């Protein structure tokens, strides 16, 4: 894989990962062109594009577009599944993931991506193992946070930021049912899509396959 981009329906870049060395200028140009091209396509159209000498594989989940560039001889369908597995990973980690989770915790999304794809190749495809690796690091974080909150005496108070809640590292016992809409503790719900990414698929079964 050459690179992966995540962008919103409005064309805002949410995540970018480049596996080939390119200058910033080129990156910006490619991003701009691709976002434009992909957003212009209609929902029922083919998920693959030939673009320059690359193949673009993209898929829309709720308000987010996931877009990968692969080489000509690579398998397009398996790339679609890479995207899907990534969404599943995010979903499991955040619990019914939505665009908002990725915006506010984009570094976590990067960590998950790095654990899943390394150097542009699928490294670990098992959901369990990827999340285990992330959690090991997170556990460290939790320990520190826990200690610090204990120290500050505000443990047990409702965390008012989405990134360090205990829920996000729940050891995949009770992940909330898919499609449940999350209540984000801020007044910005109206500006962002809070539809679960995977839920969007279930509501439109036609794009599932």
């Amino acid at each position: 894989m050459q690179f992966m981009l995540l962008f919103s329906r409005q064309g805002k870049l949410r995540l970018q990962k480049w596996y080939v060395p390119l200058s910033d200028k080129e990156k910006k140009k490619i991003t701009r062109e691709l976002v434009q091209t992909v957003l212009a396509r209609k929902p029922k159209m083919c998920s693959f594009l030939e673009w320059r000498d690359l193949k673009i594989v993209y898929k829309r989940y709720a308000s987010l577009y996931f877009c990968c560039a692969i080489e000509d001889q690579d398998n397009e369908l398996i790339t679609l599944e890479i995207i899907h597995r990534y969404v599943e990973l995010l979903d499991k980690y955040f619990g019914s993931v939505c665009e908002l989770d990725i915006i506010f915790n984009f570094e976590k999304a990067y960590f998950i991506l790095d654990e899943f794809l390394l150097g542009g190749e699928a490294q670990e495809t098992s959901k369990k193992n990827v999340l285990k690796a992330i959690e090991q690091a997170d556990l460290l974080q939790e320990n520190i946070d826990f200690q610090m909150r204990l120290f500050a005496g505000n443990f047990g108070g409702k965390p008012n930021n989405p990134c360090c809640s205990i829920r996000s590292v729940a050891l995949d016992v009770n992940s909330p049912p898919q499609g449940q809409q999350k209540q984000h503790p801020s007044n910005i719900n109206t500006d962002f899509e809070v539809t679960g990414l995977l839920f969007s698929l279930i509501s439109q079964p036609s794009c599932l396959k």
Partner: protein
Amino acid sequence: MSDVVEKTLTALPSLLSLDSQPGSGKLSSTSKLGNLIRGITELTSKHEEEKLIQRELSSIKEQVASPNTSMRQMKELMVRAIYCEMLGYEASFSYIHAIKLAQQGTVLEKRVGYLAVSLFLNESHELLLLLVNTVLKDLQSTNLIEVCMALTVVSQMFPKDMIPAILPLVEEKLTHPKEIIRRKAVLALYKFYLIAPNQVQHIHNKFRKALCDKDPGVMTASLHIYLQMIKENPEGYKDLTASFVTILKQVVGGKLPMDFNYHSVPAPWLQIQLLRILSLLGKDDQSTSEMMYEVLDESLRRAEMNHNITYAILYECVKSIYTIHPKAELLEKAAKCIGNFVLSPKINLKYLGLKALTYVVQQDANLALQHQLTIIECLDHSDLVIKRETLELLFRITNAQNVTVIVEKMLEFLRLSKDDYTTIDLVGKVAELWFIETMNTVFSLGGDMMQPDIPNSFLRLLSEGFDSTEEDRQLRLFAVDSYVSLLQGEPGRLPQRFLQVISWVLGEYSHLREGLEPATTLRLLAKLLDMKHTSSETKSWVLLAMSKLCEGPDCVSLAQELSERHGGSLDTVLRQRVQELRHLSEDAELRASVLPRDAAQEPLEVDSSLSFLDGFVSEALSAGAAPYKPPHQRQEELAQAKALSLEPYGLSLPISMSSCSLADRQSPTLLSMSSGLSGNSTDLSHKGGSTTLKLDGVKRVWGKDGYLAQKEPVEESAQVEVPSPLCSPSRQGGADSTHSQTPTPTPTPEPEKEKQQLASSLFVGLGSQSSVCLMGKSEQTPQRFRRKAKGQGSSSGASEQISNSHYSTQSTVDNLLCNNLLDSTVTSDLAVSTPEQTPQLSQEVATTNGTCDAEQDLIEETDPGNSPSLIRANSTVTADPPAHKDPDRPKDSCLSSHLPAELAGLSHSEIIPLCSSQNLDLSACHVQKEDALLLVIFIENSSDSDIECLLFLSQVSCVTDSPVEAVRSLSVSVYQYSLMVKRPAAHVALAGTASYHMALLTQSMLVSCFCLTSLLFLCLGRPLCVSTEEYGTLWLAFSQDTKQNLALLNDGQDPLTATLDVLKNKLQLHVVDIIGAEGIVACRLLQGQPCLMHCRVHAGSLAVWLRSPVPDLPDCLLYHCQRALQEH
């Protein structure tokens, strides 16, 4: 995990003490990012956003630079900086702090630091050098998470030059107890392999270990490396085929742990990777392909669920089946599969179906025929992507009858498309199809009536090309294809001028078509010579094209045959061309210098003054010859003589003959003659008849004694003449070329047609073979069918056995050779067998089957059936074969007695058997001569009749006179080849065929020798003797350099001298000078390419710095130095 906890506990106090206001840091910082994000969404204009971000950035910049900022705060600042960069604003001031964070932070801060580095910098960024130490430290950490992070960042980006610094540590991680670490280490090595393949050359055997890892994840990771290596050199890894097949079988059979399932399909990524590897291995290789038929069939069968992932596997399977050596039964299934794709209502599958069709249609045009209506529908699809893919498909099936419709469709699409890239691509294709096609028609119809400059300007256009080289190549390739198929048809009806164009193009460009043997083209051209109405002018074009193509033993014999047949022709030009053909075919070097490839448009220097003849002239003059007089002067003199002299005319003729000794440089005759040759070829035969500078002309006219001894200048002049007709097209017709340059499409809006009608116009000429096809593409079809049919027909018992025996012999040979790959040098396989051999072969089946079974039992016994270890056990079995030697193999000693006398005194390597058939055994060894490396091949005939054997090896030049030789019964004949290596490389593969006649049957064997450079370099390297001063100047002149540390030998005395001595002895290096702790060493390859090495003892190791003008040489030499020192 315990060390993680430990680490955490030690880190905790410092963390707590750092943050004076506990809790607040974290919470407020997150809300800072939250505030920023919220702030941005509230803005309405781009301008406001810019202002906000700039403000944010300057605040970050200020805090980042402040010495009071804790690492914890730094982490938060980095996250914000990343966010700003993602929005497209530059935050380059934070790059250095990201590195600092990765260096100094605790585990979690480090994680953000590394992330920021990998997002901010790219491989070539200079700041990345600062990261090397951090990575080194983390790789040695006891904390698994830190090691993981370091490996992750290394496999994303690492400066190429610094790889040697961390390579040993990464290598070490291959044996780490945790599979996650091993997996990441393998992927890091994969990355290194991609950016600097030579650096990881020495760990190829460790890749094998990774392939046999007990954890399937590590094994999967190693496949990335193998895919890449096999892509570059499929021959080198054929022995692994059986292992890959076994792994795939186990995966498909669901033997992996559930963890690897994806939507209840077992390890799809692994399956696809394996399928890709197998298709590379099985390409153009029947015996290897046969090993994978079964597992491919099973994969097809298993993938039946209706889910994307199974389709992904199916698609890859279909691609493999069409890539490897065809098997009718599988092709049928694959075709059905493609049908399902094409007919699927899901648009993604339809797209892939079209793509698969495009891939397949060159082999099986019928498949496209079956789906014509779907294709027509796709042609009018609303999605441009589908439309384009359909056009691509149509492009592949273009032939004479449907070209107009297809070009029309393409132009239609062009009008719709706005994307530049597609436009360029498509325009190229239209031009290609249209141009050659139209010119073919023009030539066929216009025939000999058209002006001579039309073909000339056409050829000129073809040779000068357009802007892009790739397009030119395509165009020429297309022309070659189209002409070859024309010649295969009925060339008799083509006009002379078209034939001339055809022969020129074939002579010049047919090497572009891979797989088109020069001998095939030669035979096609030779056919033209025998046709009655081919004019002698055309014949000389044809012969000229042939002399360009003459290569290899087949061609030499053909050339000889031709020279016998046409050598006595009445036409002198023809005779001359035939002579040239014969001479040039025998001397490849001469041919290369006289008729260089792709040189048609290089300006040709024609020495019109014929200055090279000066010596000859002055000699002749001093010997008393009369000075040259130009013809008009001669005419005048003749006229005067007529007027004055009373002697008869006859006597004046010899006088003018002898005076015609090329004295005057400005001679108009000579000028006009050479321009006639280089100019219009129409005059060629006419003028050529009268010229005296012809090879055979010389012989006949000037008798035995005369000037025959002075052959040299004559030959040289021939050299000047020969290429000149080539360049005629590029010299002529300058102004007229424009009219054929731009295809002018007629934009008639196509009326609404019935789809059926469109289909019939599009797919015309695809199914039937009766139509005269002007394009080469569809011509491949019947051939492929024939092969397919053969496969179907030969299901009788005997041939079944044969294929079985192929399979088993191949597999045992592979098993035997598996592990020796790095040391052993030769693999062989028997490609074709005849009914005569069957009895013996089936015997072989029995024996080899026996061993196979035994081996399988062994596997089953050692294996209690648990899945991950099954893979390991199996791979280990294949990777560690018993060191078994065939007792029947020819003995070294008896063959070495057959070495030619002049080589007997020289050292030669062990004689290794290459391949053998019933009666013939081929063995080889290499002999080191002062100025060359010879490959000596022994052919041993063990039958009681003589066998005529023809051996043809690629990439080497033959030293012995005639490569065709009869091998007497029960004797050995010897061939010598001199080995040349164009570029230093990791390994050099030699391959070739031996065909032999026996009992009226022609049979052939594939010979492939596989040599590692270790061998080659040891034999090709020579000491380069230079002085220290010369060394200095050379050093500065060379551009390619490499640095690395080598182990130092500690054999008592001076370690530097000791190490250099070892290198000197083992690698034939020349030690120029040793001063204190530094030494300089020089060597060169046989062909003279030098390599200099500067060594310095530094901290217990030898820091070497190599320089050479040749790109890969330093790496190569370094590799051998490492090996030499290891072996010591």
